[in-house]
């Protein structure tokens, strides 16, 4: 869909130094959006910057007809996005791409690096919590970042949260994938796994995704990863945002992060594609 969506709110949350904003849009998109899909947002009506910005959906409220996005100001595009005020209209393409599988039963492991936690928020909301227990392993730079990325929201969801920071200001000091490894080792996941009741989803930097993929593969846990790539069209036409995958015949193939992705099965992704 190609639509004008009304801005309900667009404000800085947390520490100004972190530059993380929450944007709530009202309109049709909420009706069909799925966790893991993204919106392609036009930040400027002038021709510079030229392209739309792809941003993951972090919340879907079909009753209020709203979708929520969190974004961190990293450049001119996201800086321009901060200028939209309540009741302004934004040109949005979406919802786009293929999202997460929503597990119906058992336990779900979520692995997030930094702002990669945002698309997982929508997955947490969509899961039937009576049937599925969620464990979130979340790593960030420091406590300021985690608080600014809506740690309070995560605490309110009641998921089993394990935190790591690079500087040790909150939780385990080190990598989030260390926590994942320890979590799998110390839990009774193996039995669940045997009965196909264990699944995992991850979003974050490529290095983290690759490490999470190796851990999950070793433990036979099906993992879905939400990928990021520079995009132009966002709908599968330009082939700008491809990811290399291993096809069923063993040959290398491309998938479009914007179309077949952004969520792909970890086992098919070729992490160190050179060509």
């Amino acid at each position, binding site marked *: *869909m*190609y639509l004008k969506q009304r801005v309900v709110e667009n404000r800085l949350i947390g520490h100004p130094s972190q530059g993380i904003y929450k944007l709530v849009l009202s309109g049709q998109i909420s009706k069909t959006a799925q966790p893991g899909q993204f919106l392609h947002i*036009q930040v400027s009506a002038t*021709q*510079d*910057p*030229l*392209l*739309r910005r792809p941003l993951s959906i972090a919340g879907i409220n079909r009753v209020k007809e709203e979708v929520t996005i969190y974004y961190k100001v990293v450049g001119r595009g996201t800086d321009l996005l901060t200028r939209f005020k309540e009741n302004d209209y934004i040109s949005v*393409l979406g919802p786009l791409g293929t999202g997460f599988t929503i597990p119906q039963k058992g336990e779900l492991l979520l692995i997030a690096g930094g702002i990669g936690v945002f698309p997982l928020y929508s997955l947490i909301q969509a899961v039937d919590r009576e049937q599925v227990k969620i464990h979130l392993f979340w790593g960030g730079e420091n406590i300021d970042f985690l608080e600014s990325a809506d740690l309070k929201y995560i605490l309110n969801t009641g998921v089993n949260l394990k935190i790591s920071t690079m500087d040790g200001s909150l939780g385990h000091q080190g990598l989030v994938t260390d926590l994942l490894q320890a979590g799998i080792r110390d839990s009774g996941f193996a039995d669940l796994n045997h009965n196909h009741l264990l699944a995992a989803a991850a979003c974050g930097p490529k290095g983290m995704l690759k490490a999470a993929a190796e851990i999950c593969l070793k433990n036979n846990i099906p993992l879905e990863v939400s990928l990021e*790539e*520079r*995009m*132009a*069209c*966002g*709908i*599968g*036409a*330009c*082939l*700008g*945002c*491809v*990811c*290399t995958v291993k096809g069923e015949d063993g040959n*290398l*193939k*491309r998938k479009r992060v914007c179309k077949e992705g952004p969520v792909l099965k970890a086992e098919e992704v070729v992490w160190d*594609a*050179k*060509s």
Partner: protein
Amino acid sequence: MQKVDMTTELAGMKLRNPILTSSGTYGFGEEYAPYCPVSFLGGITVKGITPLPRLGNPVPRLAETPSGLLNSVGLENPGLEEFKKSYLPKLESLDTAVIVNISGFSLDDYALMAAAFQKDSCIAALEVNISCPNIKHGGMAFGTNPKSAEEVITVVRKNTNLPVIAKLSPNVTDIGEMARAVESGGADGISLINTLLGMSIDIHTQKPLLANKMGGLSGPAIRPVAVRMVYQVYEAVNLPIIGMGGISTWQDAIEFMLAGASAVSLGTVNFVNPMAPVDILSGMEEYCLKKGYGSVRELVGLAH
């Protein structure tokens, strides 16, 4: 209200209007269908096809620049056999003219590609890519030397009965010379411009942003270069021109027609505004109406 005749004819193709979409920006026609029905378009030009499938270049393939976009997709495509099997049947059903863009790495490749498409299919014309900046051999190498450009077009002309459109590279000193070369080779039309070779460097990593280092620049940034080249080619040859390069608004489209284009092609703008063809068409029609033209064809070359 009096209607303006928006139909046009070029290189043996009858088009419902002069708006086409550019190869590599519009997939195989189905991606944009939910946003802009193809029946609004004069025609579409599909992604460049090569004899064998190609994975294309590694990522990053894209870099945004001021009012522009660098790409180095590197002709990723399913190859001739798969294209004919899986994509051509879907193109048959499209309510618009379909131009197939062909590419190769040798004269034999171009001969093979041309022979694979004849008038008995749904294809309206072949666009010959002799100007891709993103592959190491062939592509642009053919399109920057008048002699080899003429040879490629001669070979394609011999092997197909479809209209042959030569897509020219702007990465040359004298675009008029290139246009004359493809005219001698037997082209029925010329499309220009392909992307301008460019580069962007990440000042933090201190390395080129594109994995392929260099890429093709498109978007509004290149429009004045494209308008100039269309103007020059219009004076150099007697072939109809499909003008492209950074067209974003109906005003831009009119500018290309005044420079000498019989039709215009939209590329990068689709990424920003998928409804652009519809907006541009209605703007062009209104312009003709206000200026008192009964047919959009009357605009071609008026700037000369």
